[in-house]
Every structure is written in C-alpha cells, then in structure tokens.
C-alpha cells in the first residue's frame, strides 16, 4: 500500500529522537510531566514535597477517580439512611450478623462516610494542586511565542512540500498573512514561519476542572444551609411555614430557623385520575393539588402544584409528594353529643390506596359512669371495594368508586401522655379494651359512607360521613447554592466541549532556496493528539499559500523524484 518514503528511510518509527524536534511539541498542553517514582529526598520538607508531587500527578488523580467510582458502588446496593430509614431498619433486622461490621464501615451512610469524604477531598486537593500551576503555565504560554520549526519537518505527523518560483521571503510573508488570516498566532523564526492555534482547548480544560470545584463548593454549601420539611394537608386545611407546623423537618448544620420563607397556603382540592382499563389499570395519570397561597403580607393567589411542577415561593419550593384519603367521621357519646368530628388522614399501604390508620378521641367523652375515658378506632379503608364475599378486603382501584371502611372500636387510655412519641396512624391498645357485645365477640363493622356503627351498651356511635376528603403531602425545600451549582454545571459543559473538540496545533512553513534556484516550500503540522483534521487543514493552508507561491513547473527528473517522495 505505501511505498518507502525515500527522503527519510532511516528514521522510521522513532521520530522524536532528532535534535531540535522535542521543542516542537513542548508545551502543547499544560498536563504535568510524568515523573519517575523516585523516592523522597531526606527531611520533612523533602517528604512533603514528594507527597505533594505524587498527589498532584496524573497517575494519582487517575487512581483517585477510580476509587471514587468504586466507593460509590456500595451505597447503591445497600440501603442508605439518608434515603430511606425504614429500609435500613429492615436490612438490619434481616442481617444481624453483618450489621455491626456495616455500621463500623459506615455502609449505611456511604456518601457522608469518612472514607468516601477522604477520597473526594483528596481528589479535589489534587485537582487544585493541578489547576493552579497549570493556569500559570498556560498564562505563560499565552504570552510566549510558538516555538521555531524543528530541523526536519518530514518527521511530523502531517507534511507537504512543493517548489515555487517565489522568493523565500515572499513565501514567508504570504504564509504569515495566510496563517494570521486564519487566526493563528504566527511569527517568523529563522528560515521558517511558526504558528499555533487552538489555545481555547487548554482554556476549556482549565475551565472544566475549575467548574468541578465550583460544583463541589455549591453542593457542600447546599448541604450545610438546606432545609427540608414534610407536611400532610387535608383538603380545606392550611399550612403556614413555621417550624412547629411541620410533621418532620431536616436541615443542614448551618441552617437558621429565621431563614424560613414566610408564606402559607390552603389545599383547596386534590385531584387524582387513574387509568380505567387495560393492563395498566390503576396507574396514576394526573395528580393535581389546587392551593390558595399568601406570601408575607401579600394577597391571596391561586396555584396548582403537580408532581413535576413545584410551587416556587421565594427561596422555597413546595413539592407534591404523596396523597391519600381522609374519611370524615363523627363520634357521639351516649347522650348524642358530638365528641369528635373531622377528617382522618389514612396512610396508603398499596398502589390501589388500601389505607390504614387510627381515629383517636382524646377528650370530651365520658363513659356510662360519667368518668372521663378515651376512644380509639382502628380504621381500614378501601376506595374501591371488591364486593362482599369477593376475596380480600383490599382495594381494587385507586379512585373512590366503592369506598368501604372497616372500624374496630376500643376504649380506655390512648397513652398520649406516656411521654413516648406517638404515631398518629397507629393505635396503642396496651391500655385499651375492645368494645364487645355482652363481653363476647368484639365489635367491628364494615361500613359504606353514611352508615353508623353503634357501640355496645349504649356507649355512643361513630358515623362514616358521606363526604370523603383527600389529603396531599408536601415537601417544602429550601436549598441555597442551586444557582451556583447550575452555573458550575454550565461552565463545566462549555469547558469540556472546548477541551474535547478544539484541537491545539502548530504549523510550520519553511521556504529555502534550492540548488536549482527555485524555492522549496515545506509545510508541516503537529497536534496535541492525532487528528484526521490536521492533514486536511494543512492542505487547506497549502492551497491558500499556493495562490502566492504557485507550484513551479517540474523539471522532468525532479518530478519523478518528488512524486516518489510523497506519493503512493
């Protein structure tokens, strides 16, 4: 396929050995020079310097990148407490033998563990240690001039030559004009023109690595100052953004409570629709929470919060997280006095919103002796009942097509004052007795809306009202640093694009008077990495240059020689 390059038979594989050639490729990038792993020189300073040099070397950066990805793996396979405490608890129960080891290794908190932090902190120290000197070097390169031509241009990755009748000085001048016209930085050095272009590659690379640091800082900032709270709101109820109103609240260590954005909102209605038929029957189609909100002392405004569309209120965002049903019940005592009336939010336990929960009557109820007592009901609710005698009590569809609720009643003490935190969705029956008919079977009833269950011995009644409300739970997040993270991300992509798509390259044009009186023009190009574009660009430049330095008609023998040299 390829014939011997007769002008250069001796130097085939090893092109960089000729004197003067090394400078040609020098400083084409600011990547640190690889040093051989020499031991440290004696003394503390020697050790520190050695350690620093290792840490900021490309090899160690590579190893740290490896460790970072390796270290991220266990967190995706083992449940993490930052994501789901319940799962962690389940896992601990199921793997009792492993748990102590895992805890010691911080495997339930991988991403905030000491070892994971160590890896990325080392990586970023290495990164800074790498960027700073590279930036200075790059500034130096911007101020400097492209290096002079190597002795033998034929050794470079792309090369072309022709003879012209124009004088060498004319060729040099034309070459300078052509190269500068194409935005090369060019100068004449000795018998050749040296030019360089594509500094943006290096700039892009530095920008990219800098942007990584910006993103890390933004991420850390967000972790320190963020706050995140959850609140369940029943239709018709409201929420105002103060700490006491939250069901649960987490914040970064630097967060101050007075930073909570002042606003409140009321959930006007929640709408959920579901696929009615087909294999995906029951799959949610829309979730919408219509709210009326007020910011500070402002006027009421209306908004709709959807799953992907949080409501933005100043620095806070209100997200729609979950929803469920809240049946309305009325509890009356033996005299028919209402002791409880309200919507009781129940927690879904499956995709068809089969729900469970507890109804607690704290005060106002007196038993037949007139003594204060508390009532509790275990509630089991399905929005779409399969029908009596048809299989289980579980819901068949998530919408309110055939709502049914089963209640079991208890009386006694709810133990709300026991000092232990109580789950509002669960009944602690340790100090309660179930209502029983004549001391026999327990009272439990399956009811449809509008139905009333009478408690035995004239103990009162509970009514499952026709109006069933829905609830929605919201997450209110405040995460500073988002804007910074986004700017970092945009800068990273821009820098990366520059770094990977721009080719930094050098072109040399040498023109010397040949023995026959014509001028021999040689052009060669060298890139940071091999690129198919370099020869093309070189040819383009050569075409442009031949306008000023046209090819001289070839003498017969010379032609044969030249074509042997460069053609196949």
């Amino acid at each position, binding site marked *: *396929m*390829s*014939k*011997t*390059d007769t002008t250069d*038979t001796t130097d*085939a*594989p*090893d*092109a960089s050995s000729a004197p003067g050639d090394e400078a040609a490729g020098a400083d084409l990038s600011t990547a640190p020079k*690889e040093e051989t792993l020499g031991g440290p020189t004696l003394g503390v300073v020697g050790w520190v310097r050695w350690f620093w040099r290792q840490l900021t070397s*490309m*090899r160690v*950066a*590579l190893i740290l*990148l490896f460790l*970072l*990805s390796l270290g*991220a793996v266990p967190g*995706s*396979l083992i449940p*993490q407490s*930052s*994501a789901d405490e319940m799962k962690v608890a389940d896992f601990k129960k199921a793997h009792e033998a492993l748990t102590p080891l895992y805890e010691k290794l911080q495997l339930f908190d991988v*991403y905030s563990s000491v070892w994971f932090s160590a890896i990325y902190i080392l990586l970023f120290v290495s990164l800074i240690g790498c960027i700073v000197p590279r930036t200075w070097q790059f500034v130096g390169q911007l101020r400097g001039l492209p290096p002079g031509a190597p002795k033998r241009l034929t*050794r470079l*990755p*792309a*090369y*072309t030559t*022709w003879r012209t009748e124009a004088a060498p000085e004319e060729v040099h001048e034309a070459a300078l004009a052509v190269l500068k016209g194409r935005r090369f930085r060019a100068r004449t050095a000795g018998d050749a023109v040296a030019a360089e272009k594509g500094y943006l590659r290096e700039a892009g690379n530095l920008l990219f690595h800098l942007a990584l640091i910006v993103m890390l800082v933004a991420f850390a900032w967000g972790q320190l100052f963020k706050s*995140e709270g959850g609140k369940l709101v029943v239709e018709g109820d409201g929420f105002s953004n103060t700490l006491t109103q939250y069901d649960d609240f987490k914040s970064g260590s630097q967060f101050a409570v007075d930073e909570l954005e002042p606003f409140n909102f009321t959930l006007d209605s929640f709408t959920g629709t579901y696929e009615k038929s087909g*294999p*995906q029957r029951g*799959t*949610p*189609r*829309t*979730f919408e929470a219509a709210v009326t909100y007020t910011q500070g002392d402002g006027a009421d405004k209306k908004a709709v919060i959807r*799953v*992907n569309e*949080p409501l933005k209120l100043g620095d806070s*965002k209100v*997200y729609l997280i979950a929803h469920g049903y809240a049946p309305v019940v009325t509890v009356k005592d033996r005299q028919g006095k209402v002791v409880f009336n309200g919507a009781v939010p129940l927690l879904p336990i499956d995709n068809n919103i089969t729900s469970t929960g507890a109804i607690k009557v704290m005060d106002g109820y007196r038993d037949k002796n007139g003594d204060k007592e508390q009532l509790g009901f275990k509630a089991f609710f399905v929005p779409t009942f399969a029908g009596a005698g048809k299989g289980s009590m579980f819901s068949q569809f998530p919408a309110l097509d055939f709502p049914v609720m089963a209640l079991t009643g208890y009386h006694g003490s709810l133990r709300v004052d026991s000092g232990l935190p109580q789950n509002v969705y669960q009944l602690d029956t340790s100090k309660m007795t179930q209502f029983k008919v004549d001391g026999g079977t327990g009272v439990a009833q399956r009811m449809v809306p509008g139905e009333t269950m009478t408690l035995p011995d004239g103990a009162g009644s509970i009514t499952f009202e026709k109006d069933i409300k829905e609830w929605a739970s919201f997450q209110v*997040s405040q995460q500073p640093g988002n804007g910074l993270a986004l700017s970092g*991300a945009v800068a990273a992509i821009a820098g*990366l694009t520059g770094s*990977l*798509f721009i080719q930094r390259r050098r072109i040399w044009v040498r023109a010397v008077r040949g023995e026959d009186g014509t001028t021999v023009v040689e052009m060669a190009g060298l890139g940071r*990495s*091999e690129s198919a574009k370099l*020869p*093309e660009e070189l*040819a*383009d430049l050569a*075409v442009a240059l*031949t306008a000023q330095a046209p*090819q001289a008609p070839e003498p017969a023998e010379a032609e044969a020689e030249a074509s042997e040299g*460069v*053609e196949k």
Partner: protein
Amino acid sequence: MILAAETNESLAQMSNTLVYSSMAVYTLAFLAHIAEWVFGSRSKVGRTAAALTQPAAAAAKVTVQVKGAGGTTVLDRPKVVTRAAAGARDVPDGPGAAGGTVKGDLYGRIAISLTVLAFALEAVGVVTRAISVQRAPWGNMYEFSTTFSTVAVGTYLGFLLAKKNVRWIGLPLVTTVLLDLGVATTWLYTESDQLVPALDSYWLWIHVSTAIFCGAVFYLGAVATLLYLFRDSYENKLANGGEPGSFARSVLERLPSAASLDKFSYRVNAAVFPLWTFTIIAGAIWAGDAWGRYWGWDAKEVWSFITWVGYAAYLHARATAGWKGRKAAYIALIAFGCFLFNYYGVNIFVSSKHSYAGV
C-alpha cells in the same frame, strides 16, 4: 373517546409488526454479513505482518487532499504525507470483512442495504409507537431498548454516509441489535400506554433522548475498543515474531489497524462525553423539579455518576504516561459495563426512585 383508543391500539399493533419485521430483516443482514466474512476469508493479504517486519515500509501513508474549489485542478492540490505519532506502531488498516474479494464485497453491500431497510422499519416502528401514545416513546424499558438500537444503527449508517471507514462494525452491531430487540420483545415488552405523572415532563424529552443517544454512541465506542484489544494483541504477536492462529490471521487481519480502532473509539467516546455530562445535569435539574432535590444518591444517579467518572478516568488515562493503549481500553470497557448495569441492572434488580411502570 373509544374510537380514538381503537386507532391508537391499531397503531400500537402496527408498531409491533414493524419491530418484528425489522428483526426479520436484521436477521437477513446478519446472514449477509456472515457471508461477507466467509467469502472475505479467501483473500490472503497479510499486509500487517509485512508492515511490521519491514518497518521502513510503514513510514509513510499518503492522503490526497481533495478539498478546494473546482476539483479538476488536480495539479494544484498539495499531497499531504501523514505518519503516526512518535513511537506508535504504523500499520495499514486491514481490507475489511470482504477482504478485497468481489463476492465478499457484494454480500457486504447487501448486508448494508438490508440494514438500511431494517433501520427504516424499526425507526417507523418507534415513531408509530410514539404516535399511538402521543408522547415521547420512552416510558418503559421496551421503548428504551427499541429506540436505543435504532439510534445505534442510525449512528452507524451516519458514519457510513460520511464515508468513514466503519464497515467492520456491521456484523457485531447487527448481532447485538438482534439480541437487544429479542430481549425487548420477549422480556421487556409492555403494552403501549400513557406515562405515570412522575415521568410526564418536558425534561423527559431532553434527558432521556440524550441518555439513549449517549448509550448508543458509547456502545459503538465499546465495540471498537474490544476489537482494538484483539487486534492489538494480534499485532503485538506479529511484531514479536509470534505465529498467530489461523482465526486471528483471517479475521483480525481484515480489521482496521489497532491504531485506527483506538483512535475511533477515543473519538466517539470523547465526543459524547460532554453530552453525557449534560444528560446527568439535565437529570439533576429534573430531579430538582420532581423530588425536591437535584442530587440524592439514588441508585440510578449513583451509577450514572460512576459511568461518568469511569469515562473521565478513561480520558485521563489517555493523557497519562503508562496508561495509554490497552489499560485505557480496559477502563473504557469497564465504564461501558457501568452504563449497561445502570440500564439493566439498576432497572431490574435495585429498588430506586427511577422504577417506572412495567420495568
């Protein structure tokens, strides 16, 4: 309402038929590629060995520049000599699967024509599926998989159209496309349907389309990387005076040189890396809208991150002395393995916020 549903169902039906037809045509393309390789094995060129045993012969390769006005003024076109960078082995590319034989070449062309046909069928199948559900066709793994192979083949055909030397990728590509479609139609199949609300966002278009595109291009890069490793050991063996087996002599000899394969895989991997970075960032922005935090170390996020770091390590390795070549290639393959795991492994085995209806 019912009428509309029926049209949609018939469209979905049509989409399935198209995907099955494309599988049939891909199978024919596969057979034609096999024929190409079989007939091509009759050529005995052995130019790699020649190039390696006579180093001088390898010094120069000639490219004739064709750019410029006119095109008839051949005399004015400079001839540019290119050569490998210092220290690199300079070996000519193999002749391709057809091995320079006329019959092999004929079958190769047939295979490509069939691939074009199958690609068209599959692409229309994906589009009809999208129309049948009136949304982006990326709601479940069946739809991801069909789009994925369509994009991979489309990219390959694009390279061919741009006159790049990529015909060698034909057989491995068609083979894996058949595998991908087989898995998609048997195990991952989901009836066409609406999106769950969590997926219903314009970020779906942005984030998922770029993710699929990146996957397809990373895949092409991985094929090239794998072939590079084989071809490189073949060349090493020859250079050290070894005697490669007859399979290597026949098959690997016809592949492009290790340097070309390496360059190809670097270029495609490097070219999509910024897009992959963008994909992750777009996903983070979407997560910020949907879940109230842009980064939460969810399994899918973790594996996207691992993949990203993997490819960053690959790019670094190529700039690190002692890590170029084979070691960098292994890193690239591991990075692609992470991508695959993120797709199949995380979707199927790991519970994640990214679990959608019907896998």
